[in-house]
């Protein structure tokens, strides 16, 4: 950003003079404008984070406030990393992350590609498609349990109608084999439009002249798709995956309403597992260590991913 003459003048003028001439100096104004935001975030994000880290080295329990919390070093971390239950919920999270992103990318890109054919009325259909994304996941998730009811549920009825299976013969959220897919289906339904919108922006950013040049060189449509469309949309697609990855790693509201983590622990994603430890078993210190591990994981994975994304962009 270039420095405007005014800013240069403001920077070189002694503060006293500047105040007399212009009211507050730019510098003071900048601080006054930024400080409340930073202070609020420090109070409600960073201070709690530091507190979490401190608690993670203790055996503190919220439901026993009178008992002195003891410093137990890294024992919480040790216990978490060797706890089988936590690895199960990590696996459930990985399954959920992989398949939601896979379906959302495939369907989202396909939709964007079709919408980019600029048929009449594409605006209207696009608006309808994006609606689920903006709604409250908890409220919608709760209603999906109704759609998933055996026999009376709309989902089961439609599946039964299309496949000939008996709609009361399966329960999407009640069966161990189906529940992990039940949450993938609802998340895909909700968030495919997100990937679609980003892909659409990517597709629209490709200038027609590139395709025209390829056409002159007699490149086939197939070849144009793989050598022009895909590489140019890739940075957008990767950004969409980053957003969905972070959001779904934190996933709580939708799934807790849909399955509550069950049956058994088949859909107990890490956030739900963490909530159980912290707010049902009240193992505050242990849960804090768990929270720190999750935060470090998401932050670490995101940083690595952003590096890769920047490399793709530079190409």
């Amino acid at each position, binding site marked *: 950003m270039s*420095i405007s003459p005014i*800013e240069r003048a403001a*920077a070189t003028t002694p503060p006293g003079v500047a105040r007399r001439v*212009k009211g507050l100096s*730019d510098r003071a*104004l*900048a601080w*006054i*404008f*930024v400080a*409340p*935001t*930073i202070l609020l*975030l420090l*109070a409600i994000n*960073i201070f709690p*984070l530091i*507190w979490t880290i401190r608690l993670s080295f203790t055996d503190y329990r919220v439901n026993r406030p009178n008992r002195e919390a003891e410093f137990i070093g890294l024992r919480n971390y040790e216990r978490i990393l060797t706890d089988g239950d936590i690895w199960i919920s990590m696996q459930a999270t990985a399954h959920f992350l992989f398949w939601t992103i896979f379906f959302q990318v495939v369907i989202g890109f396909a*939709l964007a590609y079709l919408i980019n*054919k*600029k*048929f*009449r009325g594409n605006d209207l*259909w696009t*608006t309808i*498609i*994006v*609606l689920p994304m*903006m709604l*409250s996941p*908890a*409220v919608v998730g*709760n*209603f*999906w349990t*109704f*759609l998933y009811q055996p026999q*009376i549920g*709309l989902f089961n009825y439609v599946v039964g109608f299309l496949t000939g299976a008996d*709609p009361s013969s399966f329960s999407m959220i009640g069966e161990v084999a189906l529940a992990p897919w039940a949450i993938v289906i609802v998340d895909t*339904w909700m968030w495919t*439009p997100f990937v679609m*919108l980003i892909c659409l922006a990517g597709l629209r950013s490709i200038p027609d002249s590139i*395709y*025209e040049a390829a*056409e002159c060189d007699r490149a086939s449509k197939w070849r144009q798709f793989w050598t022009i469309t895909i590489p140019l949309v890739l940075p957008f697609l990767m*950004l969409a995956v980053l957003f969905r990855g*972070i959001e779904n790693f*934190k996933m709580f*509201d939708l799934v807790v309403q849909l399955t509550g983590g069950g049956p058994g622990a088949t859909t107990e994603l890490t*956030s739900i597992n963490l*909530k159980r430890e*912290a*707010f049902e078993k009240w193992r*505050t210190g242990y849960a804090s260590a768990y*929270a*720190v591990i999750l*935060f470090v994981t*998401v*932050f670490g994975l995101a940083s690595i991913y952003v590096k890769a994304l920047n490399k793709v962009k530079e190409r």
Partner: protein
Amino acid sequence: MSFSVTEPSGRQKLFAGFLVAFYALVTIMPLAWIIATGFKSPADAIAYPPKVVFEPTLEGYVNLFTTRTRASDEALQERGAPETWYQRIVRDKGMMIVGPSRYGERFMNSVIIGFGSTFLTVFLGTIAAYAFSRFKVPLKDDLLFFILSTRMMPPIAVAIPIFLMYRQLGLNDTHLGMILLYTAVNLSLSVWLLKGFIDEIPVEYEEAALIDGYTRFQAFCKVVLPQAATGIASTAIFCLIFAWNEYAFAVLLTSGTAQTAPPFIPTIIGVGGQDWPAVAAGATLFLVPVMVFTILLRKHLLRGITFGAVRK
């Protein structure tokens, strides 16, 4: 241009349009089903096969807003004839209304907390974004990244110490506590989006104003704010929608006085399980405003959901 190699053929367009319309209709089904179920009687709601054509009733809405009790015929007779249409609906089921339900309160809580936090978020976000956009703030990039990174924390992870902190401060289950919390959650979105919008306003306007003798603050109020109005409005709607939809903090930190609608709606129960028409009615009233906002916002949607990373 009458002919272009990049323009899809008529047949391609028709095919693409057909597929997209089909997907749109499938994807809208669950939402249509929510709205329809709100107008069904409990028997119609759980009929097999699912009923597409049914006789609409407001029973779900009446059940949503009232608490009822089953009463004997004599007790009902004693009360005399029902005076209003909603009393009649309840009376036809052999029940009587004993009072309002909590839905109205919870909905109002959502409104108060949603609008309160949106106002605060947009106010703080606008001035911070202006400073980041126009001034040399030390460690600018680091601060901006720090603001964004607060969004990466899983809410449950932060909820533990916030729960402890709020308990100490007496902020648990209060409107103020939730407003401050949602403000902190949404500030990252607000600062990043608004910085993008303000960056797009040419600096020359303010410079002209400064030369005309405005102070920096006056230039900000009289030149920048009107120019950024659309950006501020769409940012506000995004913050409102996120605060409106938030569930994790609401379910952990509120239980009564400040509970918002999302944790409440799934707890609406009738005789023998969830009262689906009432749940659907509650969901409809809660979701429809967001659908309307989404339609109004469609031009800025992409920008909002990507924190300004993708602009059309």
